């Protein structure tokens, strides 16, 4: 799970994808979501998944991207497992086409993860919050979002230190039954909560001291401006979106199981 979160964290690289306007990338992530949402057959979904690999390469994040996908496999298996189970309950598991549809669901989920991870891996939270801000989302909301991301690693480190400090006082976390174990987390949770509150308080103090909440309208040092490449990327995404809808309504996709079968000669 933690590596899934890690795979979503921004990675600083020098790539075309990183330089792209965050709004375009956000549009891309949402568009892929819609495309994958309207399709439910294996073939188009598989195409969508594979088509993203070159993008990951363009963003120089292939390894992390692949790791994120791998980290989401347990969830994928869960989706497949539960669906298979219910189909089996209904007694229709004998139909291979139904199995393919179930697998397609799992691929759809992978498509979501793939596009979102490309988006978050190449977009710094500062850029994202700037994008949201320029799209009219209130600044305080954007700031909260950004600060949450900024302080997550700090809190994780603090949790580790607290755990270490209590273990150094003889606390054994993995001893005894489930209730006893849960109780052992109290000495860790209390300092964590207390510290989170103190930290929030001193952050608020520091923010106030730097004119947070001044009554005038806020300006931003950075402005996002769409450039040629952004329009190009935007058009490409829009085109794919239109194509996906066209395909949905005018094309009929074959199942791939018979294709594989005939190819293998079974």
């Amino acid at each position, binding site marked *: 799970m933690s590596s899934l979160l890690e795979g979503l964290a921004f990675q600083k690289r020098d790539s075309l994808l990183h330089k792209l306007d965050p709004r375009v990338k956000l549009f891309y992530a949402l568009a892929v979501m819609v495309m994958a949402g309207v399709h439910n057959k294996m073939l188009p979904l598989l195409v969508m998944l594979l088509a993203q690999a070159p993008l990951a390469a363009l963003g120089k994040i292939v390894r992390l991207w692949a790791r994120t996908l791998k980290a989401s496999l347990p969830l994928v298996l869960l989706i497949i497992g539960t669906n298979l189970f219910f189909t089996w309950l209904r007694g229709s598991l004998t139909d291979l086409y139904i199995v393919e549809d179930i697998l397609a669901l799992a691929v759809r989920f992978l498509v979501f993860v793939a596009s979102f991870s490309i988006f978050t891996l190449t977009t710094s939270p500062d850029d994202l919050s700037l994008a949201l801000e320029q799209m009219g989302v209130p600044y305080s909301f954007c700031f909260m979002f950004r600060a949450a991301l900024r302080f997550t690693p700090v809190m994780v480190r603090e949790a580790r*230190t607290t755990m270490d400090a*209590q273990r150094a*006082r003889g606390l054994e976390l993995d001893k005894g039954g489930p209730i006893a174990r849960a109780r052992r987390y109290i000495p860790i949770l209390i300092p964590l909560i207390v510290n989170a509150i103190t930290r929030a308080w001193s952050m608020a103090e520091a923010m106030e001291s730097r004119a947070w909440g001044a009554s005038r309208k806020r300006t931003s040092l950075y402005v996002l401006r769409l450039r040629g490449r952004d329009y190009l990327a935007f058009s490409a995404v829009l085109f794919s979106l239109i194509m996906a809808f066209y395909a949905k309504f005018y094309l009929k996709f074959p199942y791939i199981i018979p294709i594989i079968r005939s190819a293998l000669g079974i």
Partner: protein
Amino acid sequence: MPIEVQYVWYTYPSGIEALKGISLTVEDRDFLVIMGPNGAGKTTLLKTLNGLIKPTKGRVLVDGVDTRHATVAELSRKVGLVFQNPDHQLFCSTVEEEIAFALRNFGFNEEEIKERVEWALETLGLEEYRDVSPLMLSGGEKKRVALASVLVWDPKYLVLDEPTLGQDYAQKEKLREIICGLLGQRAVIIVTHDIEFVVDFRPRPRVALMADGRIIAEGKAEEVLTDPELLSRASLVRPQVPEVLFNLREKGLPVRTDVLDLVEARDAIISLARGLA
């Protein structure tokens, strides 16, 4: 039997090499101070002593036991580690409970718990706060409670990470007094940035300097803490007393510079004055 750190390397999962071949021995009733810049690996080293961190290479032996073959709880009975920030560990509703926490974990009986808590409260001068919530105390008092909560099981090796941080002068003097009272019966290991605090200890500790995951010097305080080259490698600033003497030497006056003690320095300067007169 001692703690033996033998050629220890440690790399964090994130890939940072924090320890690069550390070797160090802490004898029974030893008094050792470890100093060095931010990020030198001091805290990481301390965590290897009670098994919170297991070396990637090399080994740590605590009284002959390899830390890889014992639990943190077992090792902690011998190696009591007090963390830098008391806010990371204080959680009970009273100081008394806080101090008893470890004893309960270690399975002491109620009678002994009472006796030991009493002793720890007294040793650290915390009797008046026994029923107060540790969260309500001042920074200095919190640090003392954290120290008491470890000292209470009387570990053979007492390890303190930056005990003077954020303390005022009087609190530091009080801490020094407490530490001096503990010396001689157990080993004390202190990590600190506060060079003037170290210099004022009697007896003087042995000093190890760390930089970039390595120990760059180890020896008597008088030697290590007056050596300009070592000090600058460890991001330390020379204590004021030898700095005065060093400046005199630079001006061509014949004085020793490996002096940390005020009275000794006074005598050196007085005799210099007489000698010239």
